[in-house]
Structure formats: structure tokens, C-alpha cells
């Protein structure tokens, strides 16, 4: 079982690292899609089927296409950034901070004693039905707020990205 976990997380980490380091933006995006697939795979591994399908539908189906359109609209169709390369000025500082944070989190998780915890065992079937029921009973207020938030984001994104040739 650990082999499956290792291969899946290898794919995920590879996707993430490539997404950060590649020069050509569209290759970056493809690595990001690989990363999303890895995360969806992990969700399936953890028996969260509904989340895995939702992840594929939302991230690969929509967000990746959104980023693709953004890349197209900002006209660096070639995708390669000019100048000294994709990394900013003090790029090693960024990497240093990230590595320190990773070390901190790993130490915390090891000391927290949860590390050896094994899962309860296979969850019963019908998780999806349970999620549906919960969404409209206990979680109905967050659901409505989410609806409002998504509409606001939709309209906001359109307004921001709209051509304001009226003012000029």
C-alpha cells in the first residue's frame, strides 16, 4: 500500500516542483495540471471519492483553463520570460525561507505524536449521500454564503477584466 502512496506523492511533488521551476509558462501550467491530478489521486486513495471528482472537475476543468486564458491574454504567447530568467532577484532567499518552513512543519508533526496514527478503517459506503444530506442540513448556511461569494467573485472578475475604454 505504501508503494501506491509513494508513487502518487512522487507524481504530485514532481508536478509541483516543475510548475515552479520551468521557464515556459505553458509547460508550467501542464506541470500544474499533473500536480492537480496527483492531488486528485491522493483524494481517491483516502477514499474521498467525491472530493477527487470535484477536484478534477473544478481545478483541471476550470482553473487550469482560466490560467491558460490569462497566459494567452497577457500576450507572452511564447511563454518564455525575457531578461535574466524566471527567477526573481534574491531567489535563494525564497528557497531558504521555504526550506526552513518545511523543516519546522515536519518537526512539529513528528513531535505531535500523531505521526504513527493509523486510519480507522474503510469508511462505510454512501459517503456521497451523507455529504449531500449534510450540505443541506447542518451546512446550509455556509452553502448559501458560498453561493453569494461565488456570484460576487464571478461579477467582480468580469468587471475588473473588462475593457474600461470609456474612461480614457
Amino acid at each position, binding site marked *: 500500500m505504501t508503494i501506491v502512496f509513494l508513487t502518487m506523492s512522487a507524481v504530485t511533488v514532481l508536478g509541483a516542483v516543475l510548475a515552479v521551476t520551468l521557464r515556459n509558462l505553458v509547460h508550467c501550467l501542464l506541470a500544474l495540471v499533473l500536480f492537480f491530478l496527483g492531488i486528485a489521486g491522493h483524494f481517491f486513495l483516502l477514499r474521498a471519492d467525491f472530493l477527487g471528482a*470535484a477536484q478534477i472537475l473544478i481545478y483541471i*476543468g476550470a482553473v487550469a483553463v482560466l490560467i491558460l486564458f490569462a497566459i494567452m491574454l497577457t500576450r507572452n504567447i511564447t511563454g518564455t520570460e525575457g531578461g535574466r530568467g524566471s527567477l526573481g532577484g534574491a531567489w535563494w532567499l525564497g528557497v531558504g525561507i521555504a526550506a526552513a518552513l518545511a523543516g519546522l512543519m515536519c518537526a512539529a508533526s513528528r513531535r505531535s505524536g500523531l505521526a504513527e496514527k493509523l486510519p480507522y478503517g474503510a469508511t462505510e459506503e*454512501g459517503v456521497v*449521500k451523507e455529504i449531500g444530506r449534510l450540505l443541506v442540513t447542518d451546512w446550509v448556511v455556509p452553502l448559501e454564503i458560498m453561493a453569494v461569494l461565488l456570484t460576487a467573485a464571478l461579477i467582480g472578475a468580469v468587471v475588473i477584466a473588462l475593457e474600461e475604454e470609456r474612461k480614457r
Partner: protein
Amino acid sequence: MDAIYQLIHAYCPTMPDLLALVLAILLPIAIVMGVFLTVFALLTWVERKALGRIQNRRGPNRVGPVGLFQPIADGLKLLTKEDIVPDAADKVVHFLAPVLVVVPAFLVLAVVPVARGFVPVDLNIGVLFALAVSTASVLALFMAGWASHNKFSLLGAMRGVAQVVSYEVPMVLAAVVVLMAAGSLSSVTIVEAQRGLGGWFVCKPWGFVGFVIFQLCAMAEVARTPFDLPEAESEIVAGYHTEYSGFKFALFQMGEYVAAITMGGITVTMFLGGYLGPGSDLPKIGWLISACWFFAKFGIIVVINIWARGTWPRVRVDQLLGFAWKLLLPLSLVNIVAMAVWHFSPSKLVGWVASAVLLAVAIVALVRLNAGAAFEKRSYRFTS
């Protein structure tokens, strides 16, 4: 899958457990892939013969008895053709695109119940998985268009992505109606929910409207003819697969066509009662009859596709998107309301009539609203 696992143990108990498990997983996949690939080859032949007959000419009848080996001949031809990659193209993405077009098409097959007790993978989120994976093909579409580095294919890819994304929403909403009626996402439960006389969802008012919306969106999703903007030969050479030749082009054709087939499978599962039919639950040979029922209904969907392809002209881009957002989307929302009315009405007849009337009113109102935009009279600058 576990049914086949018991089957293997029954026939050859000596086989080690792990091998039996692996075999139980691989066997259905092999069967489904084999069946649907031959169905794909057969359907290309059927389509070309039928289109020929509609247009007063004979279809292919040179290769094989009645032209039956034509798909094989096409395959061989495309296999032996030279595979030209434009040097300005982005090699990695150019190579990856056809693969990513074919993969979702076959992945959706995993949840289609072909016969009673025979579904490759019985996910309890079957239909959602199918819809999610079919949206993933959007990305492959765009990669193909962008990687070929020429204007026409980029334009075709943009059109393709816009079309697939905007037809995704009404399609999912039309599927929601069926999920509400069946009460579960798993495709097998959906089929079982359609048992009994008149049990098929297509026989109910909201079911029929849902079927029409789903079928139109499925045709738009795989760019079948009334909506085949992305590779419209007359306007933009061949859309996003202009720069492909040889086997990559064959992969594209296969990917698109198998996607059309699997969408037909999903439509049959959701609206026409999958493998249910009069003889489908007899003890011994019941599952064979259910398979025949599934492929009979699947044939109806194929006939509709070919018939539409032989008849209807191509739709303009703005009409295409307007039709999706301004007519199909509101209609599918009203469809959900109609299903609720049908579900909570006191008696079946009242529910039936109420939802039918609601839907009829909605359709006429929406068409009247959209009528203006659709065909405004053309104005010419120099003549009156």
C-alpha cells in the same frame, strides 16, 4: 468486478489469490476496450455509408465485402503516413495533446454499465466522475491548438474550448435532474431506478427535456456536426488538428469519435434505462439480453447523431454560444424545478401534468425571448 472475481475462483480454484484479483480487474477492462474499439471501427463505416445514402451516393464499397474493411484500411493508411511535426511547434506539448484527447474518452467508459452485473468499475460517484473527466479533455484540445503554432489551429482551439466550456454547464444541470430522480451518483443505481413499465426517465416530461438538452450538449461537447465549429473545414482549415498527420491524426479522430460513443453510452445509462428491457432479468441468459438492450438503445443514439450530421447545417459561433447560455441553461434550471414539482406532487397524474405544463410554458417563453437574437434580417451596405 467482484462478480468476475467469484467467477474466476469458481472455474479455477487453484489460481493464486493475487493473480485472480489482477485478472478480475484487467478482464473487464480488456473486454470493454475490445468491444468499444470494434464498435468504434464499425461505427465509422456505418456513418460513412449512411451519410452517403443520404447524399444520393454509395458509401465506401471497395475495401472488403460491402466496404466493411474501410476502417481498417483508413487505420493502416494513417499508420503508414509520415508524421510531420512543424519545427516551430512545441515538441513536448505537440506530442502530448493527442494522448490527452484519447485518455478521457476511454476513462468515461469505466462507469458505463454495459450489461446487468457487468460494469467495469462501480464507483459510487460514477456519473460525476464521467462528467469531470470529460471536461479534462478541454485542456488537451487547447494544447493541440497552441502547440501547432499556427493561427488557424489556435483559433480552432479557442472556439473548441469556448464551446465545450459553455456547453458543460447545461449538460451537468441536465444530469442533475436524473441524479435527483435516482437518488445516487452511481451509474448502476441510476439504471436500477428506471425499472418497471414506463420507468425510463425519458418517459417523464422533465426526463424527455433533460434527454434533449443532454443529447444536444453531448453533441456540442464532442463537436458533432450541428456544432462542429472547432474543425469547420470551410472556415478554419481543420481546426486544432491541422498540423497533425499520420498516427497522431488517427488518435485525434479516434479520441473524438470514442468520446462521442461514450457520451452516447452515458446518455443511454441516464435517460433510456441502460440495460433494462423486457427480458433483461431472466436468470440464466438475462445478462446477454440486457447487453443486447443496451446496444440497441446505443444504436438509437448513434442513428440520431448520424441523422443530425446528415441534415443540419453548421451553427454560427454567436448563435452557438447564445443557444447554450440563453436557452439551454435557463431551460435546464426550469427542468430541475419541474422535476421537484413532479416529485412532491400529491398524485402521479397531477405531478405529470403540472411539470409538463411548466416545461411547455418555459420552452415557448425562452424561444420567444431568443427568437429576436437568432435570425435578425441581414443588412447589406450597398444594396437596399
